[in-house]
Every structure is written in C-alpha cells, then in structure tokens.
C-alpha cells in the first residue's frame, strides 16, 4: 500500500467532523427528532464523533445506532472474499425519526443503497439523510450525500483510507494506491 497523499491529519480530521456536524445543524434546525446511525465498520466511529461533537456544542444527546448492511449487499456472492455479517445495534425505534446515516467514504453508492434497504426493514423514518466524511466520486447508483466532509477527486485504482483512533491507532484520511484493480462493488 503506497500513500499518495495525506488528505487530513489528526487536526484536519477533527475539523472535517466539525464541518459535518455544522452542516447537519444548519439543515436540521432542532436535533429533537434526529438520530445518528453509523454504517459498520468505520461509519460507526464517525457517527460517535459526530454525536460527541453535537453534545459538546449543542448540549443535546443524539441517539446513536450501528447498522450492518452485509445481509443487504447486492454483491455478497460477487466478492472475492466472503463478507461476515455483524450485529445491527439500534436500541430505539427509527419510525418517525430523522435518520442521519453516517459512513466514512462514499464511492459506488452501493453500501448506502443497501443501508436504505436495511432501514426499510427496521421501520419508517420521517426522512433519511446521508452524512459522509469523504466523497471520492465514481458512483454506480443514483445516490448522493446530504452532508459531505471532504470531496476528493480520485482515480479508479486509488482508494481512500479513513483511519480512526478507536481501531486504527490514529485519526487520518489517506489517499492510497491499490496494488491491484479494485473489485467492483467494493467501497
């Protein structure tokens, strides 16, 4: 794995989170009805950071859930490696809520599509918004983010790696070169 560029270091990472949080605040005048749902794996940690930031600046505790979309992927059998499903942990009813789906990278859009299907099985939100730390383009389905931390122009053979302290030891956003062409549907 060759790092082409560091898109954000620790400070840049924190700033990107706060930009996302402020975009969310601008669009949703009140957080009363808002819930955050992070898409496993890294989306969960981005959602946690957003919740912590919103708590700090607005003194509001936003309910937080984690969604695993493995069972809803359209490429479970197309992957080179078998993806393992993990638990969805959403300890509240999403019906009637403003659900903000959170993920680290928006690429083909297939994960977000799968997440929308998964949400449909869990309830009927009043509305769903998509918050993304990094949008790298190359969409394969008509999906767009409502809130974007950073837009990064990438080539197909490049990848965006989002690192989070909780599991990667540090916070960073990296543009890296992949050793082999990426599998379709991997994002």
């Amino acid at each position: 794995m060759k790092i082409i560029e560091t898109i954000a270091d620790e400070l840049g990472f924190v700033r990107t989170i706060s930009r996302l949080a402020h975009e969310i605040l601008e669009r949703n005048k009140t957080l009363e009805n808002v819930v955050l749902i992070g898409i496993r794996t890294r989306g969960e940690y981005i959602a946690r950071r957003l919740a912590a930031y919103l708590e700090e600046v607005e003194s509001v505790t936003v309910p937080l859930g984690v969604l695993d979309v493995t069972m809803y992927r359209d490429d479970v059998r197309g992957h080179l490696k078998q993806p393992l499903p993990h638990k969805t942990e959403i300890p509240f009813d999403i019906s009637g809520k403003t659900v903000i789906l959170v993920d680290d990278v928006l690429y083909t859009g297939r994960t977000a599509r799968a997440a929308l299907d998964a949400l449909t099985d869990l309830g009927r939100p009043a509305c769903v918004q998509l918050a993304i730390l990094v949008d790298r383009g190359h969409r394969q389905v008509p999906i767009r983010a409502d809130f974007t931390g950073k837009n990064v122009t990438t080539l197909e053979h490049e990848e965006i790696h989002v690192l989070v302290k909780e599991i990667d030891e540090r916070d960073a956003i990296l543009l890296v070169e992949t050793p082999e062409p990426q599998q379709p549907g991997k994002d």
Partner: protein
Amino acid sequence: MALSIRHLLGLENVPREDIQLILDTTPSFLEVINRPIKKVPTLQGTTIVNLFFESSTRTRVSFELAERRLSADVVNFAASTSSVNKGETLLDTARNIEAMKVDMVVMRHSVPGAPHFLSRMCTSAFINAGDGAHEHPTQALLDMYSIRQKTGALEGLNVCIIGDIAHSRVARSNIFGLKTMGASVAVCGPPSLLPHDVESLGVRVFTNLDEALSFSDVINVLRIQLERKAGAAFPSLREYRETFGITGKRLERLPNPPLVLHPGPLNREVEISSDVADGPASIILEQVTNGVAVRMAVLYLLGTRKESDS
C-alpha cells in the same frame, strides 16, 4: 475468514475455527429474527431443497424458517409423497432434483452416511439434518451456541449427555463438537443404552446419575426414543425415570445445579420432569430460538462461500 468445509455433514473432524466462525456469526442472525420484520434479502436467488427421507417436524420447520428469513427459494421434498415409493434409488432422486438447478440440499435420511455419499456425487452444498444414529450437526451447533450464550465459553466446561446415547445422533455430534471446542464431555445412561464402543469417543462414562450430575456444569438430556424401541433396553419407563430421570428433587441436592438442555420433543415425566423442563435452569426454548439463528448462519456461510475462500 470463511469456512474451510464445503458441506456440513457432521462435526467429526470439523476444525475448531469453523465451529467458532459459525457460533460467532450466529448473533447477527439472532438479531434479525428478533426484529418485527424478520427477513433479510441475503440469499435471494439461492434455491434450497429440504430433502427429508425420514419424518421430521421441528428440524424441518426450523430449517425452512431459516431459509425463508434469508429470502432463499425453498422446495420441500418428503419421501412419503415421492417417487422413492416407486423404487427410485437415492442417487437418482438426488440427481433428478439437482438437474432442476438447486444450490443447496438440506437432507435427513435414516441411513448413516447417506448425505456424505450424495455430497460426493452431486455438486450442491449439503447440510446433514440427521443421518440415522450418526450425526445431526446443526442440533449440536445450536446446543453449543445456547450453552455459550449462558456461560460465556465452552472451553473447560463439564458437559454430560444423559439418556439414550446409543441411538442418538445428537449425542455423537455434541461429543465431537464440544470436545473440539475444549469442553470435557461425559455420557450417562443405562449400560444397555450406551454404545458398546463408547470409550473410543473419548468421553467419561457414568452409569450413576448422581455422580454424573455432580460432575456437570451443563447437562443435555436426551429423549427416550420410544419409536426406536429404546424401551426394550430397560425394564419399564417408571424404572428409567427413577434411575435416570432429571427431577427437581435430584437437582435440589446439588450445590451448583447444572444448566439443562433437551433437544426435544420432551417425554415429560420420563427423562425429565416438568418442574425442571419449565424451571429456571432450563434453556430448552432458547435452544429452539437459537436453532433458527444457527441454521441461518450455516446457510449463509455455506451458501455465499467461494471456492477461493478455502
């Protein structure tokens, strides 16, 4: 990380990593079946045949629910209504079904090794849902999952299987699986219901129930299979109950009463009394719920497995 096995025919010789993976994948599916909408699209387009040459209600229903909750297409085949009655061979039946382009076969047969044989002759992934007195791997997996859910781990646990060991595929699969996972396994029953080569299974053998109970953290109480003439192996049901029946009175005497499992259906007041079956130490109904989730995990892991995974 993916299963090293292509079929689930038994737990004998299945590596620890595979059992671990199935048990670790189960909670994700348990979460799904506890939702209001208990269905995910994961196996859409996968066709599964339930090929039951021996009657079964609960195992077949459990498999069928697991299949449908993964959105697989399900075909049920019962021997009593099929051309098996017209003299077709087992292999011909299987090949004909396979020619209709199915992806997986869940199979129960009264002859030990029947699914092993077909899995070598066909291209579908096979899951053994019971072959004679040989193996019933998904039952053992759901037993192990249910135990682990309560105790946190299988390693180092003392588990005793009580009752008709000789006729029991559940006992054999449990012994293989539990030993692989590091549990210490014992069996207990009248000598006439123990297999003659019981020591070769690597288990402790008790013929005294109270000794077995004081050894055990967990007991798995097997059904007396009256339809398999197990009744001929002891003088009377009453005597069996007196000597090997699990009753509240018996468990009360123990400083640490064991967790109680039973694969069902229950013969109440024969191998187990109602106060135990319905009591706080019993996890019999959890086993049934977990059974669907464990089977979903097995179907997912085998059904989405790639050749490149092994």
